[in-house]
């Protein structure tokens, strides 16, 4: 399949950002969430440095509540591309059994805190992420190279100007830089790129009969026996797929028959729901994503 002019432009921009920031970094790392955006980002990094292997490690924050298929996919990909994969978990959180069912602070503790801890332990200065501006309102405001303070916080009111694509990577020792090479990609672009570059993604993105349960009007997959069924809830086997992947108890699926990428693209257009509508993390308050980002979340 011929790659479109739009995708070529987006690809060139992304690879250019990856190389440019890598050249100015001392200890870079790439966030790897195992999702489709991370898969695209990884593909771009491989392309950027080919024939050399990806010259930085990948970091995965494992909350212990990811879909099982995600974890096995991660291990396979790491082997396949000879990647250095760092996995970090908030161990005290696990010991206290912080879980998505009982604790409203679950995301803060198991994701944000774990991320900050991993970044601090390793002293990473440039941190690549696959966030896109079309995902959510506060993300549409963030710079490609985003300066984070010593506690990883983001100050949206005082962002560094970005001029002519000439990024300024200078920072103090305590600060770090979050770099978002696919900022300007839309969800549709990501799918089209996966299709034309034949990028491997987790099978959960494709519709399949899975054990599901309905809660608050959304469908969740019962990935293991830690999902406590409430009164009246029943496991139903039916065809669902996921538009984003995160912790399985917090990621709602979509009833769907789309088994191929062209079908997914077509169906997404019809649905008219944003991809993050299945992510519970965004819904608590109108500005919950922004609040999380200010605290250091991606």
């Amino acid at each position: 399949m011929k790659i479109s002019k739009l995708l070529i432009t987006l690809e060139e921009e992304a690879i250019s950002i990856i190389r440019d920031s890598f050249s100015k970094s001392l200890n870079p790392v790439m966030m790897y969430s195992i999702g489709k955006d991370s898969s695209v980002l990884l593909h771009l990094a491989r392309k950027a440095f080919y024939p050399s292997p990806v010259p930085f490690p990948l970091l995965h924050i494992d909350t212990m509540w990811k879909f099982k298929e995600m974890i096995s996919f991660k291990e396979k990909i790491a082997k396949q591309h000879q990647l250095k994969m760092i996995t970090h978990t908030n161990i005290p959180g696990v010991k206290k059994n912080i879980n998505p069912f009982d604790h409203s602070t679950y995301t803060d503790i198991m994701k944000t805190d774990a991320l900050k801890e991993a970044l601090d332990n390793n002293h990473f200065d440039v941190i690549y992420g696959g966030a896109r501006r079309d995902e959510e309102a506060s993300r549409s405001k963030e710079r490609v190279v985003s300066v984070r303070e010593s506690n990883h916080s983001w100050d949206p009111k005082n962002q560094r100007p970005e001029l002519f694509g000439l990024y300024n990577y200078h920072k103090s020792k305590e600060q770090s830089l979050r770099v978002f090479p696919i900022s300007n990609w839309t969800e549709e672009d990501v799918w089209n790129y996966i299709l034309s570059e034949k990028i491997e993604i987790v099978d959960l993105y494709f519709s399949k009969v899975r054990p599901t349960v309905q809660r608050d009007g959304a469908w969740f997959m019962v990935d293991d026996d830690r999902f406590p069924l409430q009164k009246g809830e029943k496991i139903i086997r039916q065809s669902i797929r996921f538009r984003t992947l995160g912790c399985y108890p917090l990621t709602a699926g979509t009833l769907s028959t789309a088994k191929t990428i062209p079908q997914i693209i077509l169906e997404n257009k019809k649905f008219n729901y944003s991809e993050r509508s299945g992510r519970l993390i965004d819904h608590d308050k109108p500005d919950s994503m922004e609040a999380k980002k200010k605290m250091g979340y991606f």
Partner: protein
Amino acid sequence: MSLDPIRICICGSVDDGKSTLVGRILVETKNIFSDHDTKLKNLSKRYGTTGSSIDYALAMDGLQAEREQGITIDVAHKYINYNKRRITFCDSPGHKQYTKNVVTAASECHAAVVLLDATKGVLEQTKRHIAILDFVGIKNIVFAVNKMDCVHYKQQVFQTIQKELSSLIAKKNITSVSYVPVSALKGDNVTSSSSKMKWYKQKHLLHLLSTMKLGKDNNKFPYIALQHVHRPNRTIRHYMGMAKGQWSANDKIIALPSGQTTSIKTTYSGFVKNKKTSSCIISFETKDEIDLVRGDVVVTKQGLVQTGNAFHASVCVVSQDNLYMGRTYLMRLGNKETNININKIKNKLDLITNSKVACNELTINDLGEIEFNTNEVVAFTPFDQDKRLGSFILIDKENNNTVAAGTINFALRKSESIFAETLIIDKKQKANLVKQT
């Protein structure tokens, strides 16, 4: 379907209706998801300024502080597919205080929409924004006179503003201009033609944006701007950069500024080895070891890309720190970073009289001209010949802030700098002057 990407900067003064305009375009082209739409309705109840109807502006103002204060602080990026184009809207803030974010938005765009309030006409901010657009090299502008509903859709109001605008831009390098009367709130001439302004014979705003002809990049001169030298082991060096033109193995190359020559041994573009490539993303090995580092520029023949260490440039100050004569800054020109010293602050643009006035320092939001020396000889082109090799930023070495954005007008040689001071040289003559040396 193949889409052509175009980025459009939306600017205008506070409350001219930028966010309302882009918000409406998103909603009417169905580029807003229904769950975001529900959020929008909820937000409208909480923060809205439009009574019981949807406040489209809230689709754009993505930050809590923005919604609470009802203003736009930073650039929002929104994407739509329309008429075979991927249009990216960069909605920029109107407050003078956040002008640096307008420069940020404009410097990455191909074209701009400048919004005006029909009841207020041309304001100081309008002039500032036009000057900024001119500074960053934007040649296509659509002026949208908004809130026509507030002036009973009168043609005369529109014409008066149009006249003032056209005299304002007469001296600028803007080559393609159109004017459209709109009501962002009521939806006139935004995504469909208005029945209330029959006197307006042109197409609606979105149509203008989706068919606007962008000036072709007329620099065909091939070069590679080096971004990174990758050393996977002791013997191999992969030179990585942004390329223009076609490249293949065995091409003879000249490295600038060193002037050393060799030829290309191997090329990689993506996962493809040794195929003639016109991809912008290239990586290559050379036959001989030469002096080639990040920031250098590789060419196949002498010509467009020059070398120099003293420059005349236009700048826009984007930080609270002033730009002083005699001060040293770190400059990033293309991919090259080196120290510079500002020898002279020549003038700044007075927005009221639209003329250049002499001054000793430039403060935040000022546009002006300076002369500086670089510590090392650097490869460059004048900005109007190639944006990538002719634009720079200045960084404060103490606090790492980006102080100014700049564009190279021409290199200074001794004889030339005398010229520059005594004569008023227009852009064409300037280009000729540079070519002669």
